[in-house]
């Protein structure tokens, strides 16, 4: 009598615990489909999951619409999820052996995911593989493999507040084209609460000066952080900081260059295409123009930033996923994205269309040929993080010491390859 409920309870608990342990598949080997088209999953209706690290509702809606158009065309099902923390959610997917099929990968994350075999190196087989800008192909080429197709890209430009510009009595001819002119103009624009040039202190901005001086962190696989060119670039920035015609965002209480610019603390800033969306949403009354970055001692140079469409090696329908990427990287489709959230097409065949439609962003696209993507070797992102930590106090620090410690760190990670 009294036993029966007990037994039932034990049975129930056992069942619960087994069910809880059962689904986790501790010993399940993820299967990689290497057979190609003959697989059942790649039949007419694959169902694909897409995970995107979206910049906002505009981007999410544009990607969702594009995915729906692809689903309409191909008969596959595509589900788009906007991640709140992309790196974390991707890692969870890879660890569980159940990653999304298609997802954004930043050029700085490529090495980590490529190293552990999470990514499918599919991009070289795309029909439009030769259409991508060469420096973007480099950004997603790791150990000789072109892993994933660049989604779009942005370059850095000089953003100028036209009202402050005119108030200082400057004209169109005064748009700086050399470092010296930049220095003069920034000094002219520095009045009261307004600083001539404000950028964030990270390598992702100051690195452009290194490129203009002819330097860079990694040159042909070798660490070149402590080169005299880089020293010249950092010294130039440090001098401008000391003169007060330039400041870092932290000093003026802004989170990033766009905020300093929009609130009027900065007459000029160095940012990428993404500033357009921010200005529209947050500071619609501020008029601005975009100029190419001024040339340094070694000529023009800027940094470009890009994401790619990664495909998981564990994807059940790699072919369908590759079709989806091919669809998304078409010139017309990329122009749709450009209209929706301001990025630039990653394919050269769309350049003309972009120039015609967005003359105000000509400066961004015309620098595509002189742009460099930050290095993507394994461990370099940690080195850059450490460099950024040191650059924050550039005004009071010794640039040579910063560069030599970065050189040591870079040699350590590049030597470990």
């Amino acid at each position: 009598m009294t036993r029966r409920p007990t037994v039932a309870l034990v049975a129930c608990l056992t069942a619960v615990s087994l069910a809880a342990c059962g689904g986790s598949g501790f010993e399940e080997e993820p299967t990689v489909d290497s057979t190609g088209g003959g697989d059942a999953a790649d039949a007419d209706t694959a169902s694909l999951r897409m995970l995107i690290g979206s910049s906002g509702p505009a981007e999410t809606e544009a990607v969702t619409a594009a995915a729906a158009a692809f689903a309409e065309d191909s008969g596959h099902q595509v589900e788009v999820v906007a991640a709140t923390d992309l790196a974390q959610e991707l890692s969870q997917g890879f660890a569980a052996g159940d990653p999304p099929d298609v997802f954004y990968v930043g050029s700085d994350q490529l090495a980590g995911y490529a190293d552990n075999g999470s990514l499918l190196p599919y991009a070289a087989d795309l029909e439009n593989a030769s259409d991508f800008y060469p420096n973007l192909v480099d950004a997603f080429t790791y150990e000789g493999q072109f892993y994933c197709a660049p989604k779009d890209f942005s370059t850095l430009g000089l953003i100028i507040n036209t009202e402050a510009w005119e108030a200082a009595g400057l004209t169109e001819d005064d748009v700086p084209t050399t470092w010296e002119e930049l220095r003069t103009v920034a000094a002219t624009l520095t009045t009261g609460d307004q600083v001539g040039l404000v950028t964030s202190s990270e390598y992702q901005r100051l690195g452009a000066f290194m490129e203009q001086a002819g330097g860079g962190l990694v040159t042909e696989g070798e660490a070149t952080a402590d080169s005299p060119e880089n020293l010249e670039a950092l010294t130039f920035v440090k001098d401008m900081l000391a003169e007060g015609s330039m400041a870092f965002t932290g000093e003026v209480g802004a989170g990033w260059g766009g905020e300093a610019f929009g609130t009027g603390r900065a007459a000029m800033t160095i940012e990428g295409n993404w500033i357009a969306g921010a200005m529209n949403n947050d500071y619609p009354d501020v008029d601005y123009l975009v100029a190419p970055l001024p040339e340094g001692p070694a000529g023009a140079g800027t940094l470009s930033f890009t994401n790619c469409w990664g495909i998981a090696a564990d994807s059940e329908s790699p072919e369908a996923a590759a079709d989806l990427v091919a669809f998304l990287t078409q010139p017309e489709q990329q122009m749709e994205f450009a209209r929706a959230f301001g990025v630039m097409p990653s394919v050269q065949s769309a350049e003309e269309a972009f120039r015609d439609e967005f003359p105000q962003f000509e400066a961004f696209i015309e620098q595509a040929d002189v742009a460099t993507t930050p290095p993507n070797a394994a461990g370099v992102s940690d080195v850059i993080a450490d460099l950024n930590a040191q650059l924050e106090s550039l005004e009071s620090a010794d640039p040579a010491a910063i560069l030599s410690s970065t050189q040591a760190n870079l040699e350590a990670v590049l030597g470990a390859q």
Partner: protein
Amino acid sequence: MPVASQRSRGSSMRSRETAAGWLFTAPALIILGLFLVIPVLMALWVSVSDWDGRGSPLAGDVSFVGADNYEALLTGGGLTTRDFGTSLRNNLWYVVLVVPLQTVVSLTLAMLVGRRAIRGRGLFRTAFYFPSVTSSVAITVVFLFLFSSTGAVNKLLSFLSIEGPNWFNDPRGVLHIALAGMGVDSAPAALTTGGLLGVTWWEWLAGPSVAMVTLITMAIFTTSGTFMLLFIAALQNIPAELEEAAMVDGATSRQRFFRVTLPQLRPTLFTVITLGLIGTWQVFDQIYVGTDGGPAKTTVTPAYLSYTASFGSQRWGEGAAIAFILFAIIVTFTILQRVVLRERTTVPRRKRFLQPVDERRPS
């Protein structure tokens, strides 16, 4: 025969009781096993393996690498070691400042609010306890606004003609600032050459950065309420006669507090400091929400570093190793303060009738 039957009945009774006991504890055991023991063991395995984040860590292609991950952190000498050293330095200053301060503040509040004479006790109690029940994320965001360079705090300071620092963007260590004020701008050579975990002694002695100070303030603000409650409960357990007896004996109020009240609070003090140590060594959410480890890595803590090493750089073994080193640190600190707070000469009242030999120490 009756004896035998009795015994068998007794044993069957007992076995039934045992079964019932296991049955009643089973849900808790299963849940703890699934969500605590197994994950901890798996993390321990990850910390000594070369798992790289793809598939299960228990799969066949993951191999045992011994203490490699621990070595990279503790003796590697590269960026990894320096980052870990920096995070330990940041967190150590945080612990050293937060634990004593929050203990003192919460005890003070408890003494104030615990007074029977005070009016509106309930209101004050609620007000002090309120930050503790608010989510740490919300409080962090509020503090980000308060301490922004044009925020309320700097506005207040500007009324006093003080130009407030750029709180969350100031990587300078407080001690370094103080030394610079006394004219010591650069480190003596003795302190820049040596060091520990890739961080020079001069850097160890930097003190918390200005940004960390705001986080320290926030921690004291949010946790004091909880510990105040513990102290209030303990204070109410102290019989009023003791206080009266001390007064009759002519003790001043100072003496009454330090000689009578405080010794009675020893167990609560132990609890508060232990909880404080555990909590402060595991700072994560304020960093994740507020600073991302910046400015200049001065708010990176081991817990946050563990997260970024794993999820950001796909170095899962190192991330897990950091977690276990952190565990060892917390245990060490707890044992240490246990030793410090040990009852030394007096025998606790509950043991008055049995005095174990080892309790008595020659004085």
